């Protein structure tokens, strides 16, 4: 069983009016692990798709956009302006412009969580970003760690496979323990495997090992956040935002409750791209 495999998603606004006659803009975020496509109709969320990145960035971009457009009657020609972002942003074949993921995440989080958000933690597949933004969603500061996969989604996937726990169950499992353990001594993906095996050998339950790992990851990203500066309101985006085991521990360490959204937390970058696409289209038309 592939314990690391997370659930892909597709969403369409059931109440959206027909897109014909409106302005359709889009954003595509090609990350190292996941790819998202977001479509906006007159600046409002219309549809999105979130899937695993394939071996080829242009194909992943196209695949994600096709999933988002499926059943809507939209074609690539109907997208008035598209922004590519993320690690593979220059490889979105139908993008009109590429914009850095830092800028797009801030803008997307501003839409997802509202204009009060000032600190964003984006926990991606292979990196982690602390972003400060203003009331308009413009970036005021950022700090990124992509030195290694420790403390990222990929690290969590490795632990899921090692302990034979579906990656989406890690959060609830790690929160089911009665007493919080010490964090694992190292959250390097390689050394964490050794540490986890050793802890299991001395009798720790899987839940306790997961709690120790989630806590170590939370401590690591809180250090990044604090170095960049933490100002309320605070929100977490990216795949690990869905892992309550890490998210709750980050909140506990910061003493701040993160803002919540019903939408997929992984779409922030692509959503920001689609919003910026709307701005750029207006500029072009002016």
């Amino acid at each position, binding site marked *: 069983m592939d314990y690391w495999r997370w659930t892909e998603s597709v969403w369409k606004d059931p109440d959206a009016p027909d897109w014909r006659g409106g302005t359709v803009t889009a954003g595509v975020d090609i990350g190292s692990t996941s790819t998202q496509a977001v479509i906006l109709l007159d600046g409002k969320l219309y549809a999105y798709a979130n899937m695993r990145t394939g071996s080829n960035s242009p194909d992943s971009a196209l695949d994600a956009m096709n999933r988002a457009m499926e059943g809507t009657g939209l074609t690539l020609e109907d997208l008035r302006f598209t922004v590519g972002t993320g690690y593979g942003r220059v490889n979105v074949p139908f993008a009109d412009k590429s914009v850095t993921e830092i800028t797009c995440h801030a803008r997307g989080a501003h839409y997802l969580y509202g204009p009060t958000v000032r600190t964003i933690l984006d926990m991606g597949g292979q990196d982690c970003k602390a972003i400060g933004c203003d009331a308009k969603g413009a970036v005021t500061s*950022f700090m990124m*760690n992509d030195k290694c996969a420790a403390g990222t989604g990929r690290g969590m996937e490795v632990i899921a496979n090692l302990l034979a726990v579906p990656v989406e169950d890690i959060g609830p499992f790690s929160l089911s323990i009665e007493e919080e353990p010490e964090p694992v001594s190292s959250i390097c993906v390689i050394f964490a495997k050794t540490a986890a095996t050793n802890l299991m050998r001395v009798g720790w339950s899987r839940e306790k090992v997961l709690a120790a790992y989630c806590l170590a990851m939370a401590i690591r990203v809180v250090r990044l956040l604090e170095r960049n500066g933490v100002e309320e309101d605070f929100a977490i985006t990216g795949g690990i935002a869905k892992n309550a085991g890490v998210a709750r521990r980050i909140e506990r360490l910061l003493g701040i409750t993160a803002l919540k959204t019903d939408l997929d937390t992984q779409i922030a970058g692509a959503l920001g791209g689609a919003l910026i696409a709307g701005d750029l289209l207006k500029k072009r038309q002016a």
Partner: protein
Amino acid sequence: MIAHYGFEDGTGVFYITIDTGRCARCTQKGCKTGCPEGLFELEPDDEDMLVASIKAQARNAVKTACAACKPLEGRPKSLPCQKACGIEAITHSW
């Protein structure tokens, strides 16, 4: 914007910080040629103003790339990049 480029690992915290608000107003952009290792490049910010950043491929290697400018003894008050900047938009965490 305050942009931090670098990393933290078990040996320390290694970030080069650029105040892009100041940088955008600079007309000289001396950092681009002032760094002996050529770590700086110019890229458009959100308002399409050219600002300095650290080259993507160098961000995880700033510790070693900057080592030559940071001798253990007799480290200068201002590093070559800071001297070249002139508007105090560049700081180092270590």
